[in-house]
């Protein structure tokens, strides 16, 4: 069973992402910020994390660094999904262990295309 942890402080975005990912046959879990996401991962690592950048409490970049440093934390694929759409942010994300990067707004085509490149579909 493939699982996806959707991390975004916007309930609307989480809902849209969830619909798309369930269509792609992922079992989804949601988190509102990086801290909740990290706790969820430490309970059980998902197949993939769809990760917003700007969030209260703990942002996406802090989460990514903490995840990659934790035991078993290199396993999940991490796909950023953020309004940050400049080369600097993309480079920073990839340098810190992200696997793919989606610039919002996104749709089913984009998620499908990125996930299939990562061999997740």
């Amino acid at each position, binding site marked *: 069973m493939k699982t996806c942890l959707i991390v975004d402080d916007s309930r609307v975005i989480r809902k849209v992402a969830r619909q798309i990912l369930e269509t792609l046959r992922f079992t989804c879990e949601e988190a509102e910020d990086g801290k909740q996401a990290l706790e969820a991962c430490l309970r059980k690592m998902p197949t993939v994390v769809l990760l917003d950048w700007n969030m209260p409490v703990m942002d996406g970049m802090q989460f990514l660094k903490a995840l990659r440093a934790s035991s078993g934390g290199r396993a999940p694929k991490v796909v950023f999904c953020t309004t940050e*759409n*400049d*080369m600097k942010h*993309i*480079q920073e994300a*990839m340098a810190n262990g992200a696997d*793919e*990067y*989606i*610039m919002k707004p*996104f749709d089913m*085509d*984009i998620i499908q*295309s*990125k996930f*299939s*490149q990562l061999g997740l579909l």
Partner: protein
Amino acid sequence: MKQEDYDLFATLLKQRSGLVLGRDKVYLLESRLTPVIRKHGLKSLEELAQSIRSKRDEPLLRDVTDAMTTNESFFFRDSKPFDQFKDVLLPELLRTRAPKKYFRIWSAAASSGQEAYSLAMICAENAAQLEGWRVDIVGTDLSSEIVERARQGLYSQFEVQRGLPISYLMKYFSQVNNDRWQINDSIRRMVTFKEGNLLMDFGPVGVFDIIYCRNVLIYFDQPTKTRVLDALSRVIAPDGVLFLGGAETVLGLSDKFKPLEGQRGMYVLKDRPNSGMLPAKEKEAPRASAATTTSPFVVNAASQQAVR
């Protein structure tokens, strides 16, 4: 819409681009020709038809034809044809073209250039092996506007996220502004874009080792598909490979090409040599006899000019 107007548009499109406009697609005329109607200071489809009939003004005919083409494309579309290029064909090209260190690829019906640039990026990824080689990638399309777009290599944020891995975006693109990305000069220099109509004499284009002609035959009727496939067979290397789109085939349409066994979407000449790229391992099925006589690829000058 009046039958005579429908007939006029259907004939014009069929002659100029090969597009078959079914009666059920009339709504497409409405939606796609509205900008053309406005641009030429007209008011309605009816007026447009009238103007075409009375003036046969080339720029107007061209705008109508262009507006009715479907230009959708994306990077690494369907991924498989690009994996096949990288994994199956590139090694064969390196082996068989070693004496001249030169090969040529044609993206026929290139639209906004994603197919040609995807191939160029694959070559760039394999630059070490291609050191000292010359690779020509040519992209052609009917629509001059789309050819210009392809040349510029400018894509929206949406377009660079469909099919393009983020690592390629980082390596081969620069951000122009908030929503626009441009493919780098190093890749742009590898590709030449030109206007070209698949229904007309290709002119002195030379010979191509690989041809991508994808998602364009679907718009044509059977005799037109056959005619285009015949024309392609005349500019492909004897051991060359033709790629068609996922919904396209040569079966029942061409006595020149046959599917390459075990490689979906790839087609080779029926009378290809036993040496060269991807030589046949066992004896291939005997050549089918030329059942139909195909018309020679002649250009009817009148058909490019005007609609009667």
